[in-house]
């Protein structure tokens, strides 16, 4: 069972993630179109990171997190490469979904 301090810390980290997501949502109203997918994928990376601190991320998620970290900045200079990277993530997660029990 997690201690109160640890729970408070997790709550704070989650609050920061929610702040990031809501300000991203607001920013996306006016920002370049590709920032939307970037913020979503960046949120996902942050969420996996948080899950990892709780021992809830498996090897698959850690591998995907590393892939996101390595490729997400393609959005700044290679839109086609960024889209291809998103396509690969879609396949990775779909295969994982197909293999997983409901």
């Amino acid at each position: 069972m997690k201690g109160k301090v640890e729970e408070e810390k997790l709550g704070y980290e989650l609050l920061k993630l929610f702040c990031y997501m809501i300000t991203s949502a607001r920013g996306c109203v006016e920002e370049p179109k590709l920032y939307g997918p970037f913020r979503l994928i960046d949120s996902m990376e942050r969420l996996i990171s948080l899950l990892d601190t709780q021992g809830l991320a498996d090897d698959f998620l850690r591998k995907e997190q590393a892939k996101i970290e390595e490729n997400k900045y393609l959005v700044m200079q290679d839109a086609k490469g960024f889209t291809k990277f998103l396509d690969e993530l879609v396949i990775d997660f779909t295969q994982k979904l197909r293999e997983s029990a409901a």
Partner: protein
Amino acid sequence: MQVFDIIKKRRSVRFYTDKAIEEDKLKKLVEAAIWAPSAGNIHAWNIVIVQRKQDIERIKAVSPGVLGNATALVILCADREKAYDKGGEVGRDVLSIMDIAIAAQNICLEAIELGLGSCIIRSFNQAAVRELLDLPKNIAPELVVSLGYPRSIPNPPSRRTAEDTVIRWIKGENDQ
């Protein structure tokens, strides 16, 4: 280093070592900003510097564009009241923002000379940053420059050629 070398050396750096930036270096960056040109010599802007980790994390939480692990944030804020009083609507809505952009570039170039990396960011929620910093209503955060000692420096992206950039060049009679 030649100015042009410094200009070419500047990259948008997001990953830094843990080493804190010395106060005298931050003061030098502020000086560099102050010496930027300003429309009508109005200088309708101010700076907030944040080095405390907890506050950087809070600002990052409402600033989706502040990525990585900067050890200092320099936040350039327009003084909208002063800009309007001295420069009218164009001073408030256009020129003060342009002044801030030029000042930010000065900061980034001086940062190179000081061995620092930097990144200019506009993707943040102005109202949220103002709230976190407890800034008065007339002070509008317009740009964040994230800073630190670089851990890694990205490769330069490709750039347009001069031929692709200059769309018309009207030369003088003696320059044919």
